[in-house]
């Protein structure tokens, strides 16, 4: 497999992991709105369903994007695809 094909395979796998996490917190958990509301796990004292829509999912998305960017940069470095600054 060529270097480029390997890089793309790693990039694609990284994408699938990212999208899987994204799916859980943007779609998956909201199938269980009523269950979250009834849950005894109450972050900061808020009902779980309320908390996830106000802060939880939103904050996870912010962290997820930075994590995604960091790991993607590592993949690019590994294959020598790092850009020169200002390029």
């Amino acid at each position, binding site marked *: 497999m060529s270097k480029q094909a390997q890089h793309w395979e790693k990039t694609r796998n990284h994408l699938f992991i990212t999208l899987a996490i994204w799916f859980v917190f943007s779609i998956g958990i909201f*199938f269980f709105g009523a269950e979250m509301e009834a849950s005894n796990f109450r972050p900061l004292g808020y009902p779980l369903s309320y908390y996830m829509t106000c802060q939880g999912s939103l904050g996870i998305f912010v962290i997820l994007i930075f994590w995604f960017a960091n790991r993607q940069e590592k993949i690019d470095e590994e294959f020598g*695809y790092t850009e020169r600054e200002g390029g």
Partner: protein
Amino acid sequence: MIKGKFIDNLPKVYGIYTGGFLVFIILMAIAEQAGMSAKLIGIFFVAFTVFIYAFIGWLSRTMQADAYYVAGRQVPTVFNGMATAADWMSGASFVAMAGGIYFKGYGYMALLVGWTGGYVLVASLLAPYLRKFGCYTVPDFIGTRYGGNLARLSAVLVLTVASFTYVTAQINATGTIASVALDIPFGIAVYVGLASILMCSMLGGMRAVTWTQVAQYIVLIIAYLLPVFWISNKMGAGFFPHFMLADEVARIAELESQFGLGSVKNSAADLATVPKGLAGITKAHSEVNTTPWKFISLAVCMMAGTASLPHVMMRYFTTPSVKTARRSVGWSLFFIFLLYSSAPMLATLSKLSLMDPNLSTGIIGKSIADVQALDWYQNWNQANLMFVSDFNGNGTLELNEFFMGGKAVVLATPEIAGLPYVISGLVAAGGMAAAMSTADGLVLAISNALSHDIYYKIINPKAETAKRLIVARVLLFLIGFAGASIAALEIQGILGSVIWAFDFAMSGLFFPLVLGVWWKRANAPGAVAGMLLGLISGTAYLIWVRNGGSGFWGITQLTFGIVGSLVSLVSMVVVSLITKAPDAATQRMVDEVRVPSGKTVLSRN
């Protein structure tokens, strides 16, 4: 001269700007104590901030194509994040969102999840690859990747439909705020708003819009956060409201049952006396009040729409590299998160201020005559945003007898909670900044697509730069004017139009953009079919449901993008597979897009 130096000095420049703005707020507060009238404070706030933006727009004037279309591709990561956040957060986010949460609770918060989750798609599926491509506009990517004028034209069509729907709503919002703050009729205020928008974008294109958007973000975030923190502290609810309002949320639920929420219903005859557009509290504050499918379908539409809206995507064309484009998406979402996570807190504080009899600001349970004598009630009642009526004739205000407009939650809460008027002036300036920054981005997206993709790429490829940029500015003016004229007619509410814009963009552009990077086999006929059939089927579904059609799968006029994008996906895949695979040159181009280093794809061809 200003270029290299200006970029290096950005933190200092905007630091001084922020400090100056805070000093201005303090001066206004002193002026208020000295007896300056509320109206004059409002005028000062709006006029002063708009003047600053126009000044930045003038400083950033340019006659270079790279600066006009993509701000010279040298906007640093964090600042591009701020500019994107301002570009993104519109009058709907600033003025309408907290109100929506206040009235509709959990079901409405699908928008919060959708409008943030979409950025994960932007970062992972699109932004870095489009940056590597090196295009000026989104149709530029479609036109070059798939080849042919038909693909380019179809992309321009979808972009125009979606962005134009969106921009009329924003000009409407600037008009609403300008008319209240400057005390002029709405029909005139719309054109005042338009003039301010054009001043920011006409001379300097993307470069001017970038630097005004950063300035607008600073104003709007201060204007949103300051009242939230102030009210929370004043009420004794906690010095950091985001982490400390759990007791208040629980208290609202307690008060709701005490005041008979849901058990006491208004008769149709009573409701007919309530002015149009105002609503009472009918849904519990924190309860799960919608089906999973309703919540998820709305969130999905907003997420896919986020990843297809050209005015957001083109902000990532302005970063210096692919890597910075990716990081910049993270910063964008961080700056958006600051406001979005505060909206539910504002809704909570606003509701509790009104409901809790233990607070001096609470009005439920007080006598109707007392409430009607309140200064702020009279002001907002006059503005047609508040209404009380003694339906049961007991002389006391019940929960079901108090009505408010959605905008009032953000605009009136500072006054209700007893904050000085200077805060209300600040909030008006923030709303103006939010609506202006989004309108700027949208008008620029449309006029750039028309001037670059239609005029330069299709009609007159030999046009000189100077001529292209003049055409771009004339188009900018015409589109702004058309948007203002339609906004003056007030056809659809602000929030409704915004949601439609997302559905239109998702119907026509989501899959053609994503598959352009991630599926090599996608070709021009497939993309054209995907864009046109997606847009047509989505629009048809919208018209059908609007005219009393029953719809299917629980898809409403707010989620018609699901129909459009599914048709788009299927037709794109089927048509691509039954027609010829793209040629070797195109395949190579896709390979190049996938490698972050090296020159942009367009500069090589």
